[in-house]
C-alpha cells in the first residue's frame, strides 16, 4: 500500500513537472491571472451591482467568467495532453517502468488536478492579498465558498476529461468529443434549454432533474445563490430548486455532486484504461 502511494506520488510529481513546462499551462495560468489583473485594472472593485462593491463584486465577476471558460479549458487541455502523450510514445515508455496502473492513472489525476486548480485558486487568492494590502473589506465566506465550488468544478471536468482521454484513441477525436460534451452541458443550462422545456410543458421533475445533474448548472446556481438568494437573475428551474432544497442543502449539493461526478467519471475511465490497451 505504501509502495502504491509512493508510486502515485511519483507519478503525480512527474505529471506536474511535465505540465509546468507545457505551453498549455502557460496560457492557462496567464488567462486566469490575467482575468484578475484586468478586473482590477478596469476598476471593477469600485463599481456596484445589486449592492455589491469592492472584492465581492470582483469575486462574483471572476466566478462567472470561470464558469464560462474553466470547464472547456480543463476538458481540452486534459484530453489533448493525455491523448497527445499516448500518441507521441510517452505512455509507451513510462508504462514500461514497473508502476501499477492504479498508481499511474490516479497519480496523473492528482498531478493534473494540482496544475489546473492552483492557478485558478492562486489568482483568486492574489485578489484577496491585494485587497488586504489596499485595506478593503474581505468577503471571507464568499471566498471560501467559491474556493470549494471551483475545487469541485475542476475535479468534475478533470474526471470527465480523463474518461474521454481513455475512450478516444487520437488527440483529434478526444478534442472533438470534449468540445461536444461541453456544448451538450451548455445547451442544458437553465436559461437556454430549460426555458424551452418548460415552455413545451415538460414535467417539472424532469426539468429539476436536468438542472440538478448538469454540473455547469449546479455551479452556476450555487455561485449566484450566494449573492442573489432569490435567484432573480436565474431562469425558471432555479426557483423550483430553491423551493425543493433550501439554500443550505443546495450549497452542499453543489460541492458534493461535481466531486462525485468527477470521481465516477474518472473511475470508469480507470476501469476501461486497466481493461483495454494502454496505448
Amino acid at each position, binding site marked *: 500500500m505504501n509502495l502504491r502511494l509512493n508510486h502515485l506520488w511519483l507519478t503525480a510529481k512527474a505529471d506536474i513537472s511535465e505540465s509546468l513546462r507545457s505551453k498549455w499551462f502557460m496560457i492557462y495560468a496567464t488567462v486566469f491571472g490575467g482575468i484578475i489583473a484586468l478586473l482590477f485594472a478596469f476598476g471593477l472593485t469600485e463599481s456596484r451591482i445589486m449592492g455589491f462593491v469592492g472584492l465581492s463584486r470582483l469575486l462574483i465577476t471572476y466566478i462567472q467568467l470561470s464558469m464560462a471558460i474553466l470547464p472547456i479549458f480543463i476538458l481540452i487541455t486534459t484530453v489533448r495532453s493525455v491523448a497527445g502523450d499516448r500518441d507521441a510514445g510517452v505512455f509507451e515508455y*513510462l508504462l514500461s*517502468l514497473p508502476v501499477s496502473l492504479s498508481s499511474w492513472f490516479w497519480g496523473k489525476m492528482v498531478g493534473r488536478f494540482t496544475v489546473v486548480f492552483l492557478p485558478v485558486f492562486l489568482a483568486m487568492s492574489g485578489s484577496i492579498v491585494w485587497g488586504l494590502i489596499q485595506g478593503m473589506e474581505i468577503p471571507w465566506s464568499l471566498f471560501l465558498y467559491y474556493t470549494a465550488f471551483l475545487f469541485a468544478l475542476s475535479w468534475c471536468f478533470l474526471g470527465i476529461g480523463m474518461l474521454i482521454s481513455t475512450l478516444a484513441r487520437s488527440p483529434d477525436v478526444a478534442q472533438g468529443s470534449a468540445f461536444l460534451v461541453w456544448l451538450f452541458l451548455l445547451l442544458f443550462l437553465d436559461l437556454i434549454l430549460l426555458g424551452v422545456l418548460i415552455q413545451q410543458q415538460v414535467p417539472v421533475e424532469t426539468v429539476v432533474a436536468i438542472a440538478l445533474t448538469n454540473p455547469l448548472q449546479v455551479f452556476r446556481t450555487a455561485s449566484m445563490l450566494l449573492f442573489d438568494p432569490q435567484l432573480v437573475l436565474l431562469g425558471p428551474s432555479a426557483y423550483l430548486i430553491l423551493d425543493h432544497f433550501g439554500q443550505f442543502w443546495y450549497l452542499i449539493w453543489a460541492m458534493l455532486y461535481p466531486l462525485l461526478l468527477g470521481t465516477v467519471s474518472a473511475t470508469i475511465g480507470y476501469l476501461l484504461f486497466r481493461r483495454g490497451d494502454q496505448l
Partner: protein
Amino acid sequence: MITLVGVSKSFKRTRVLNELSLEIAAGDRVALIGSNGAGKTTLIRCLLGEYQYSGTISLNGECPRENRKTVLEQIGFVPQLPPPLKMSVQQLLNFSAGVCNCDTAEMESVATQLGLELEPLYKRPFEKLSGGQKQKLLIAIALGRPTSLLIMDEPAANLDPEARHTLFSLLEQKQEKSAMLISSHRLDEVASLVNRVIELDRGEVVLDDRVDDSIDLSSILQCTITTIRVEPAFSKAMNGWGFTTGANEAEWNGSIPGPDRLRFLGTLSRYAALLSSVEIKEAA
C-alpha cells in the same frame, strides 16, 4: 524465461500477431527482425503488458497483464524513438529509480560510461537533449537497474563508435544472467550482438535460427585503410567512425568495436573502388 503460447493480437479486423509461440531462455540474445508491420512493436508491447492479447505470455512464470509490476521489475526497455518528455533529466532519473525501487547512482554510472556527462544536463528538459544524449540516458536507465530481460529497439542507432563499444561491453556483462530481445529492421545492424535470429512476417515467425556468437562483445579491432586518392565523402564517413589521418591524408587509422565489424565493412563496401589496402586485426 519467456514463454509465448498461441499469442494473437488484432486491431479491429487486422490481425497483427497470429498464434505466436516462442520460448526464450536466459542467455539468449535475440534479434527480432522483420519489415514494417511485421508485428515486432506489437509483440514488444504485449511483453510489456501494454496491450491486451489472446493466448498466454509469461516471464519467469508471471503474466505481464496480471502481474504487471512484478514482470516489469525484471524488464529494461529502450524504445526506438525517445519519448518527448518535458521533465528534466534529474526528474526522469528520480522517477525511474523511484518506481524501480533502486538508486540513481548505477544509472548515472552507466550514463558516464557511455560518455554522457550528466552534471550540466540535470536541469535540462529531456526533450531538449540531442538524439544521442537521449539514447544514452534511456540505455543508462534500462541497464542501471537489476533486470533479467532487456528489450531494445535499435539501441545503437544514434550512438557514436565509442559509446557503441561501451554499450556492447555492458551488454556482455549482462548476457550471462539476462535474455535480450533486440528489435531491428535490418539484421546486419544487430547480427554480431545476438546468438539467435527470429524473423516475423505478418505476425508469424518465419525464421527462428541460432547464429554463431563467437564474437567477443568487448573486443576491439585496429584498422588501417589506405585509399588511392583523397575523397571528401570517404573522409566524412571515416570521421564518423572516429578515424584519423596522419601526414599521408590517404591513410586512415582507427579502431572499431568487434561486434561492429559487419557494419564497418558495409561502410567500406560503398567505397570499394577507392580502397587500395585494408588491414583489420584484433587489438592486443
